[in-house]
């Protein structure tokens, strides 16, 4: 993937989309194949090492550190993943909190956040580590149209900063506006890969994914 590029991944439940993200992030080992990052085989690298290299990841169901404040959640991302210290870490935290709209709730415990703020925190914490590739797992689920628009703007800003995006999303009409390549998976296999318009017209995709939704 080139810097600033964006790939969307769609497919029915159980297609293996989240497993693919797990394998890319190092949360699960692959049963076959390898993962390469910046020309290096990182298949055997731990999830923590991959994060420090520049692979960030968010979860489908947000997993904040609930006993810590929003700021602390982001701070551990900046210090552990981003390897920043002192004022550099604080500045990184402030910028991602501002970007994700979490600055007003920075001192609240993550436990008290609603779903929208939890999703934003999931993104902010991953960004605090300073990723070059960001793996997003259904970050748009449950958002209103206005919130989805905000998310699209945020993704566009990240891309302009050179961050490459891999985004799993069921809200296809939102996803296709943010990505320039779309992959459709079914039963652990890629069944279509190309520009979003072409993939969405693909008969196999309609049969395996879009058709089933109707």
């Amino acid at each position, binding site marked *: 993937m080139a810097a600033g590029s964006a790939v969307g991944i769609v497919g029915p439940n159980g297609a293996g989309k989240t497993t693919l993200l797990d394998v890319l992030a190092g949360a699960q080992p692959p049963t076959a194949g390898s993962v390469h990052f910046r020309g290096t085989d990182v298949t055997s690298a731990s999830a*923590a090492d991959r*994060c420090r290299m520049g692979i960030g*990841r968010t979860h489908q169901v947000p997993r904040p550190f609930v*006993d810590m404040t929003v700021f602390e959640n982001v701070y*551990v991302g900046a210090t*552990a*993943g981003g390897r920043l210290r002192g004022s550099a870490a604080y500045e990184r935290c402030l910028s991602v909190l501002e970007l994700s709209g979490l600055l007003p709730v920075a001192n609240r415990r993550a436990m008290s956040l609603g779903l929208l703020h939890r999703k934003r925190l999931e993104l902010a914490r991953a960004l605090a580590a300073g990723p070059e590739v960001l793996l997003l797992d259904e970050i748009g689920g449950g958002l209103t149209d206005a919130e989805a628009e905000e998310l699209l703007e945020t993704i566009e800003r990240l891309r302009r900063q050179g961050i490459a995006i891999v985004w799993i999303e069921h809200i296809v009409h939102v996803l296709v506006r943010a990505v320039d390549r779309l992959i459709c998976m079914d039963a652990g296999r890629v069944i279509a890969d190309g520009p979003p318009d072409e993939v969405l017209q693909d008969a196999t995709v309609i049969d395996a994914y879009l058709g089933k939704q109707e």
Partner: protein
Amino acid sequence: MIWVNAVMAGILLGGLYALFACGLSLMYGVMGIINLAHGDLAVLGAYLVFVISSSLGVSPFLALPVAVVLMGGLGYLMQRALLERSLRAGPLVPLLTTFGLAIVIQNGLLQLFTSDSRSLDAGALTVASLHVNDQLTIPLLGVVIFLVALGLLGGLQLFLNRTAIGRAMRATAQDPDTAELIGINAKHMYGLATAIAVGTVTIAGTFFGMRSSFAPLSGPSQLIFAFEAVVIGGIGSLWGTLVGGIVLGVAQTIGAQINPQSSILCGNLVFLAVLIIRNGRVFVSRAVSS
């Protein structure tokens, strides 16, 4: 006034129990490990201070920092080489592993030092006391131990709340898998938590050795006191260990005032009473907290 004396002695004793208990609480809070070798590690630390101070001819207070560093290193290795492997096999295996470790430490110490009791010479501090009035005196060593416990608990709390490593440790305690995904080496954090726990229990063991005598098999009884303090104060809570330690200490000294034979019994009865009042529920926090 005799009861005031007993309560005062109990509060100070609570400081020692808090020193014993905070490492136990930290290991459970961060890794979910109940370390049955905790008391034996305290005794091992006391022996290490004894060896350093007697071989170099220095005060145990000077030997203590060296022993804390060495025991902390041992704790880190223990976690990475032993407990980390057992953690993968479910919650029962670390319990059995630390039980086995306790037996190894006890028998190793018996081999090296025989079953003779020893004590650490705190110098003039051993008998020094603050004379409040004719009926109330406060042992200075007890005050020192209590202040060290306060400082240690406060320092640990600051470390966990204010430093990058402390925050990473708290994050790991809450969700190690997610912590890994944001760049935290969870295994290293576990190692550091065990190093801190073993370092703090070395301090506890050393003060225990200054207050009274210790022998290779002294560990299990200290483990029980630490356990009781942790459970009374709430598992995983650092300041809770001080509260639990004080409740246990005061119960023991008041029990001793009623009848010298009933000191430990009285502490155990208060522990049981706390469990009954809470209807068997134990306050548990898998996250290290205040």
